[in-house]
């Protein structure tokens, strides 16, 4: 069974159609890199998967459950899909450790001791064992984003969604976040990553999706698509991000 199944998905914002009849499957273990010009619908594509956006047409199944189900089903889908945001969105009133503990305690009913042990392990894994008592405002952007990744992993998702995770970071801070993402991919995590990091797409991605004007324009192996772009649109796009 596919982890994510888009079945002729349509999404509109008022008059404008942002996703126009998208159909595709994402299997467990795939690292899907989604690229496209700004306004192409790539962030919306991602946000539909964990129902931060609702869809107007077609159906979208995550781990076999439809995003059009009742609220409890939507929450179940969200627990299976960890999300990492461009702006980190850490809870500012909590330390790094508390941020990571929060999900397991409040969504999975974990005990505080259990959640703490897990959070410490996850923060260690993203290289922040030394900084877990710090508040988000005391951390650099790269550190905040790594805490955010640990926070998303803490709810033990089957799938991780990344919405331009490095776009708000200074160039020298990007690699520390990309390294964590790469480790995650190597462990076999299913990932959908909206990004402009072509290097990451080439080296870590198992599949590249180019979205243009709400449609999937290309879908294939990253190395192939990037070294030999099949359309002028993709060639132009790659020239602009490179």
């Amino acid at each position, binding site marked *: 069974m596919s982890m994510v199944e888009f079945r002729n998905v349509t999404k509109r914002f008022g008059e404008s159609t942002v996703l126009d009849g998208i159909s595709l499957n994402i299997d467990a273990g795939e690292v899907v890199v989604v690229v496209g010009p700004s306004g192409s619908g790539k962030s919306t594509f991602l946000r539909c998967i964990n129902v931060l956006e609702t869809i107007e047409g077609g159906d979208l199944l995550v781990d076999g459950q439809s995003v059009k189900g009742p609220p409890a089903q939507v929450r179940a889908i969200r627990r299976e899909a960890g*999300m990492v945001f461009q*702006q980190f969105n850490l809870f500012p009133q909590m330390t790094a450790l508390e941020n990571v503990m929060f999900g397991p305690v409040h*969504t999975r009913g974990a005990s505080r001791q259990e959640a703490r042990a897990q959070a410490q392990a996850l923060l260690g894994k993203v290289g922040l064992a030394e900084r877990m008592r710090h508040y988000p405002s005391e951390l650099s952007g790269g550190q905040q984003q790594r805490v955010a990744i640990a926070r998303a992993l803490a709810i033990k998702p089957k799938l991780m969604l990344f919405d331009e995770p490095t776009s708000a970071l200074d160039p020298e801070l990007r690699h520390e976040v990309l390294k964590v993402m790469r480790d995650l991919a190597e462990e076999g995590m299913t990932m959908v990553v909206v990004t402009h990091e072509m290097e990451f797409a080439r080296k870590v991605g198992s599949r590249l999706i180019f979205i243009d004007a709400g449609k999937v324009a290309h879908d294939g192996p990253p190395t192939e698509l990037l070294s030999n772009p099949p359309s002028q649109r993709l060639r132009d796009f790659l020239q602009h991000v490179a």
Partner: protein
Amino acid sequence: MQFDWSVIWASVPNLLDGTMMTVKITFWGLAGGFVLGALAGVARAYGPRLLSGIAQVYIAVIRGTPIVVQVMFIYFALPLMMPGLRVDALWAAIATLIINSGAYIAEIVRGSLLSVHKGLKEAGQAMGLPFHKILVHIIGPVAFRRMIPPLGNQCIISLKDSSLFIVIGVAELTRQGQEIMASNFRAVEIWSAVAIIYLILTGALALALRLVEKRMRIL
């Protein structure tokens, strides 16, 4: 004229009674106002249309009428409209302050809730939390810190507004001052003493708020 300190010493017991009454009215009025204001503010920010509409009408009516009219209405008009209802002056004063401060606090609560970056709400949603948990554990604590300065302002305003309850004869500080003055005509001494007591009360409030603010960083 001569400032006669003995007049003040003689009035201290009565002024203290009035002070206690002012503190009592303000305390319960604000305690109730916080609850009412929090409910109305949340209803305005996130409630379904009907609840939000009710809250909006409540806020518009209270903000649009003077507090003196409100207390007169509750004390004099309400018993006529609802035969059998007996309204005691103290209860009328407290009820008025609850309803009055609640309307202003509702707007403070609404504004603070809506000022919280929507990414925090999305981060909570993305974890699969139901909305009430997002409100209580994520948005609420961030918004509460932002409410502290305007809430402090409202506490001081409500404390001073309680002096207007002189119109229904409740024996708060201003009323006590008025009565003492009516018997000895020492306006300078009595109103100076009353003013200083108000200053001490509002000063203590301001200090308490500053301490709270120091302990809770505004985020």
